């Protein structure tokens, strides 16, 4: 059974079977990553463009590694060193890149909906690597894969997403994906950072971090995104850290809890250094699994006829 779509734009509306297929396919690539030669010839002859209009370390390197390990040819584009600086529009940029005969575009952009727009102006397979505050599907998939690896299943798992939920594409993709897979999802953060009507997505809301720690199997701790002016939503970073920062003392109430973080970490703000390097977190597992998940998505979309 192939995926039901030839793009991965988000996890909203993506059927359970598709998510299941991606997670299972990622197992294969986890094994490939353990080999002495971490490369397979599967996407030979395919050309993939990494179009990053926003800064990124993990996601870009992860996608690039995934592409190379599947033997595709990759082109990297970053806004700062391109003709975008001369005023070329997104549409013209895409049209020109497509004219060079490429097969797939990985796009990160600060404007929500950019990947959807690309599907209308070109024929390549489009993968969303983060669009503004909308979605970041591969991050949510790797989070779910890491949780499945740890707990065996997602159904019934209690996951709380902590922090700046309103400005987080990681949060939204996780909410859609986890709910589809049957997990119990809640969110926790300062009331200024929890969107109104979020309950309509099927999540519970709490404003008390100690309650969230006590009642959940997993915390997915979001980064305070200072580049999205997150600082304006609470009085000070110190105050945020005091009321919502994850510290070892707070985890004493639930010693078995698993901590995820999509990175990059603001140590001492949303998570203390002790927790970030401690036994509850699986942050670097997430990063490793990210390559396998992206290989799975590239494989499933790239070999679709």
């Amino acid at each position, binding site marked *: 059974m192939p995926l039901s779509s030839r793009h991965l734009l988000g996890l909203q509306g993506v059927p359970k079977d598709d998510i299941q297929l991606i997670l299972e396919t990622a197992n294969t690539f986890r094994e490939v990553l353990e080999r002495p*030669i971490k490369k397979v010839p599967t996407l030979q002859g395919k050309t993939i463009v990494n179009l990053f209009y926003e800064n990124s370390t993990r996601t870009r390197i992860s996608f690039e590694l995934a592409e190379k390990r599947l033997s595709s040819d990759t082109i990297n584009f970053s806004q700062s060193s391109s003709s975008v600086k001369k005023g070329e529009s997104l549409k013209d940029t895409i049209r020109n890149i497509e004219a060079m005969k490429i097969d797939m575009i990985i796009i990160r952009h600060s404007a929500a909906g950019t990947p959807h727009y690309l599907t209308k102006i070109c024929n390549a397979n489009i993968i969303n690597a983060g669009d503004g505050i909308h979605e970041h599907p591969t991050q949510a998939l790797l989070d779910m894969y890491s949780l499945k690896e740890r707990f065996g299943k997602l159904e019934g798992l209690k996951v709380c997403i902590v922090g700046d939920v309103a400005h987080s594409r990681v949060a939204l993709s996780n909410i859609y994906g986890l709910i589809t897979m049957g997990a119990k999802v809640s969110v926790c953060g300062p009331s200024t950072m929890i969107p109104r009507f979020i309950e309509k997505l099927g999540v519970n809301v709490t404003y008390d971090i100690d309650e969230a720690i006590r009642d959940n199997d997993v915390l997915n701790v979001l980064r305070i995104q200072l580049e999205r002016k997150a600082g304006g939503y609470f009085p000070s970073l110190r105050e945020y850290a005091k009321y919502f920062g994850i510290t070892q003392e707070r985890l004493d109430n639930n010693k078995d809890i698993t901590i995820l973080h999509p990175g990059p970490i603001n140590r001492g703000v949303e998570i203390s250094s002790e927790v970030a390097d401690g036994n509850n977190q699986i942050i670097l597992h997430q990063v490793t699994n990210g390559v396998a998940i992206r290989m799975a998505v590239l494989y499933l979309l790239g070999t679709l*006829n």
Partner: protein
Amino acid sequence: MPDQIKVVDKLGLDRILTRISHEILEKNKGSENLVLMGMRTRGEFLAARIAKKIKQIDEIELPLGILDVTLYRDDFRTSLKQPQVSVSNITFDINGKDIILIDDVLFTGRTVRSALNALMDFGRPASIQLFILIDRGHRELPIRADYVGKNIPTSVYQEIKVKMEEIDGEDSIYLVELNKK
């Protein structure tokens, strides 16, 4: 329901595997450096059975690996159906080993080509020998088996179906007539 003839039964299959196990040991003068590598899906079970027989004969437990070659196939651009990938499971070092590669049917030789490429990514074995349960002809690549269970010349309108108790509930091999189109 297409026409099918049973060409090998349970006892026949067992005899083939007994003979091949002896042949493997004879050719390699023992089992010292051998490892078995079954190709998913049925090669995996054939390999397990050969391992059992060799243990009875030589009292040695050979390392047993499972190889999934989907990622190495050459028909991604042409086939209509997307193949489902599975996981290889090789827990030992294959460097310097004599590998017995095991599959059920040898047809075009393309799967074996994929397997050879896949194995080279795991290391540098001393040698690779091929055991095929049924050789049905129609090779498209210069590939031959070192051990053959049975040669069954077929037409392209026929198919060989190997059934094994582990997943199909019975041990037998059928020659199936496909509808000519």
